[in-house]
């Protein structure tokens, strides 16, 4: 009984994650600016990466395979999910920072506080 509950929770998470991944990949084309695409990348990382990995770990735990196969698959999935949740935000942050600082892409925004503060700092010196 508990296996079926685990299996269906895992399957729901994985299917939901697949749909979110698809929507994120569409969002990469819909958004017109690099800084807006960062949000689509977040959906791709958390919605399309973290949730399906947890779901697949649950699915692997509930199947009737050998115990070492189940333990190995779910263990690797959980560690990979933790790694993604740690590294994906840091990666997109450092990429956005370098892009903004080097002027590779200029953001189309209403107000840009980084530029304001940098200009102010230059003026004081």
């Amino acid at each position, binding site marked *: 009984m508990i296996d079926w509950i685990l299996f269906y929770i895992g*399957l729901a998470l994985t299917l939901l994650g697949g749909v979110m*991944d*698809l929507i994120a990949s569409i969002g990469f084309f819909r958004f017109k600016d*690099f800084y807006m695409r960062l949000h689509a990348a977040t959906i791709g990382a958390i919605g*399309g990466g973290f949730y399906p990995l947890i779901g697949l770990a649950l699915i692997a735990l509930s199947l009737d395979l050998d115990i070492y196969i189940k333990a190995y698959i779910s263990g690797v999935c959980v560690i990979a999910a933790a790694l993604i949740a740690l590294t*994906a935000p840091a*990666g997109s942050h450092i990429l956005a920072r370098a892009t903004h*600082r080097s002027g590779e892409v200029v953001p189309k925004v209403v107000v840009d506080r980084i530029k304001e503060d940098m200009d102010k700092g230059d003026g004081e010196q």
Partner: protein
Amino acid sequence: MVSYSVLEGVLPLLFGLFTLAMIIYSLRVFTSKSVSDMVLAVDALTIDLIIIFVLIGLYYKSPYLLIGVIPLAAWILILDIVVSRYLSKGDRK
């Protein structure tokens, strides 16, 4: 215990969803204008690929194909930091 054949019925659907996402991400990689854009799409593509690896491992019932998942997850961060260090070389000289 859930029988493996139940999962077997759903696996083609999961493969289809994530493969479609992979193709759209790679189109984004191929058509991007700037390097930052490309690296962002590569990140999303790689995370998508991690799930495809797990699905392949479940399809073959072989856990050993999952062994590459963790270095893959770590190399995303490295690619980000390397490219950002390359890009911001100008502002410190």
